[in-house]
């Protein structure tokens, strides 16, 4: 009995960092997303969204679904790189969703390159044990 409890506790502790709606979890996911973006891998960036996710880009019409999201990111990758996103706040919504607020810094690929920043709100949803973005929107302070 004691052993089972220990095992269960161990399992729960092991699962927590990967599954809990914590700032650390979302930061790790953001880092993975930024890595895909900075490599120019639009397919990998799009794969982090749910099948029917919405993206509402600043300065362009909203897009829905992975193929449209991939095309949008591919276009964006031509214009900016050096993306770094920082989680500011995470609110758990029930057991399998979370709202996250954060900021990103990036460099434009113009000559000369320009540093810029944006703030964003995303909603994460757990699908098949993995956190996926079901919605993504951002804007600029200026």
């Amino acid at each position, binding site marked *: 009995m004691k052993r089972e409890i220990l095992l269960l506790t161990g399992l729960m502790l092991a699962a927590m960092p990967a599954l809990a709606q914590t700032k650390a979890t979302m930061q790790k996911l953001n880092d993975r997303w930024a890595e895909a973006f900075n490599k120019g891998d639009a397919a990998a960036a799009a794969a982090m969204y749910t099948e029917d996710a919405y993206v509402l880009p600043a300065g362009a019409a909203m897009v829905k679904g992975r193929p449209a999201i991939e095309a949008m990111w591919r276009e964006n990758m031509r214009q900016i790189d050096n993306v770094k996103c920082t989680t500011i706040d995470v*609110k758990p919504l*029930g057991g399998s969703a979370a*709202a996250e607020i954060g900021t990103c810094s990036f460099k434009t690929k113009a000559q000369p390159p320009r540093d810029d920043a944006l703030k964003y709100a995303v*909603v994460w949803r757990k699908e098949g044990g993995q956190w996926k973005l*079901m919605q993504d*929107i951002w*804007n*600029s302070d200026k």
Partner: protein
Amino acid sequence: MTRIAVFLVCLVLSTTSALAQAKVSIEKLNAEWVAAFNKGDAKALAAMYSPDAYVLPAGAEMAKGHNAIEAFWRGAVKQFGDAKLTTVDIQSLGPGAAREIGTFSFKTKAQPPEQVTGKYVVVWRKMGGQWQLAADIWNMNK
């Protein structure tokens, strides 16, 4: 077997109606939000947000909490009026949360007035039986 089927049907019906109820509540609250905005009532607007809500305005820094949100809207209602909100999609995120996507338009109070249009995301949370805006962010298509 029949009992399980009946239970499943009831479960599906109750979840469907929870989403339907959330939709009705959110559309009613949007009408209240628009009425408060068009009256220039920043206090009434702020009261519709949760105490720890974030507003991420296009073209201004993020505001957190009732006081900062009220101050932001007080500034905005001086410049804009005639707001309209159109819900595009509402998705349930468990029993106490929902994600709304929509489009908006308002008019500047300049002479001649100019129309501004864009899109928004709101994360709604049900606190003490009342739906409140927990996160509010928007941007323009151009």
